């Protein structure tokens, strides 16, 4: 019992809990100065207008999109991950790509369903990430999922262009045009994600980690080129 008492006192001192729990005093500060680093201005997020909060997050998402389209700076996408961009892109793609199950002539469209596109994108990027973790890459799980999701942007743009082309009467030339657009989107996405993720692997295993990324975007590009009305 005596030892218990001693240790208790030690604990008290260590944890700096030497305050009377009955009447706690102190200042309630939110957003201390240590948090506001990395070039962010010092502000208190508690009493700012909601518009500012939303705009700041939107700006962060937009900046990430910009870095995907112009993959020059390597660390920009890895600094702070979020999954808003991937969610938006994935939902959009799933909505466009889903095959309608009840068309007029009662033929199944043959395309994937909404949930299937969703599963391919999310489970696919998770498997790719897990693969690079298993190979010994030093990158956090969600960072990699975030990068893979944001790098869907070129393929999504390709999908929008293909969708516009599909509105007119189809010819062989238009198919070739769609094919070229999809291939460009695919190469762009693979290149961007490799720029961000390529360095995280041990030397002899780069190709092993890149191949699943390549396959991931290849499958999504296949879905895009196969999508027809």
């Amino acid at each position, binding site marked *: 019992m005596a030892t218990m008492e001693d240790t208790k006192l030690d*604990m008290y001192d260590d944890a700096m809990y030497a305050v009377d729990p009955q009447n706690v005093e102190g200042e309630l500060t939110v957003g201390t100065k240590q948090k506001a680093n990395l070039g962010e201005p010092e502000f208190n997020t508690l009493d700012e207008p909601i518009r500012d909060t939303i705009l700041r997050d939107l700006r962060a998402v937009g900046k990430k999109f910009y870095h995907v389209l112009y993959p020059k700076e390597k660390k920009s996408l890895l600094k702070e991950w979020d999954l808003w961009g991937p969610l938006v892109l994935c939902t959009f793609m799933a909505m466009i790509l889903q095959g309608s199950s009840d068309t007029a002539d009662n033929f199944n469209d043959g395309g994937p369903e909404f949930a299937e596109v969703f599963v391919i994108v999310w489970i696919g990027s998770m498997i790719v990430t*897990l693969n690079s973790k*298993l190979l010994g890459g030093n990158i956090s799980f969600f960072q990699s999922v975030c990068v893979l999701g944001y790098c869907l942007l070129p393929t999504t743009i390709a999908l929008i262009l293909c969708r516009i082309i599909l509105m007119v009467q189809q010819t062989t030339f238009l198919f070739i045009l769609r094919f070229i657009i999809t291939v460009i989107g695919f190469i762009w996405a693979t290149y961007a994600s490799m720029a961000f993720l390529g360095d995280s692997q041990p030397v002899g*295993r780069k190709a092993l980690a890149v191949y699943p990324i390549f396959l991931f975007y290849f499958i999504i590009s296949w879905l895009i080129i196969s999508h027809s009305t």
Partner: protein
Amino acid sequence: MEGDRGTSGDSQFISFQDFSPINHPGSGGQAQLDLGASDHRNFGNINNDSVGVGIIEDLHGMPDKTEAPPARNFWTIEYYQKFFDVNTNDVVERIKWSMIPHGVDNYWKTHIRPKPDLYGPFWICVTLVFSIAISGNMANYLQTANSRNYHWRYEFHLVSYAATAIFLYAWILPLALWAVLKWTSSPPNMEEELIEDNKVPGLLELLCLYGYSLAIYIPVAFLWTVQIEWLRWSLVGIAALLSGGVLLRSLSPVIAGKHKLIYITVILGMHLLLAAGFMLYFFHVPSKNVTIPISAIVSTVQPTVSAALNSMNNKTIPNVQ
């Protein structure tokens, strides 16, 4: 009263806090670490003492046993990293030699045995699933492109069928083979078996072997889109024989016995059956090409026919009366 209650609550709170930090780094954790260390030491001693086993293991060249890797928790990623411990050229070599049967060199012993991995089997299966789905769609398109009025649609759900078939084949067959070999193998005459190097292969090794043996079907799947019937069937035969030959050559020391013929027919037969199944289900033209137009014709023709029949009936019945 309030003060009393406060202190009692306080002491409870404190004692609760006490337990975890002091017990863990203190006695419990230390004891566990000690146990682990002593265990390892014991194993090391046994290995060193029993000279025979040690020599045999040295002959085998199993570095992982002697190094005694730190035991990882089953739920951590580090536990599984040992299945993915390969470099790019390892994988390329394994894929290459899984397609070329070699008389002298036993593929299983020289390539798979030292360090079986799961990277190759997994990604080969995934690639094969999607290459079969994609090239199956391409083949279907090429077959229907000539007929004008047929509106071609791509069939995404080939992916599910291909995935089911391939993952079942790549998992069930090695599992069954492993179980059969394990339970029918001769009673454990340990040293003799080890020296003759005919040890029953582990499940991981068989999974790895079978996964790599599917690699040849990936290029073949794209070649199957060519619309020449004899070429496609000869591709089926060549692919199945090549990778099946590697499989047989690898497993020949293990399956040598009175049931050898059964093993050979099962292994080669299943491999051929898989290839033929791919070919017939995903690439075969006539069956699909015939059935769809017939059903379409029937659905369009049926109303007119029945209407004609009705009118005929209406006409004929008064005549009879």
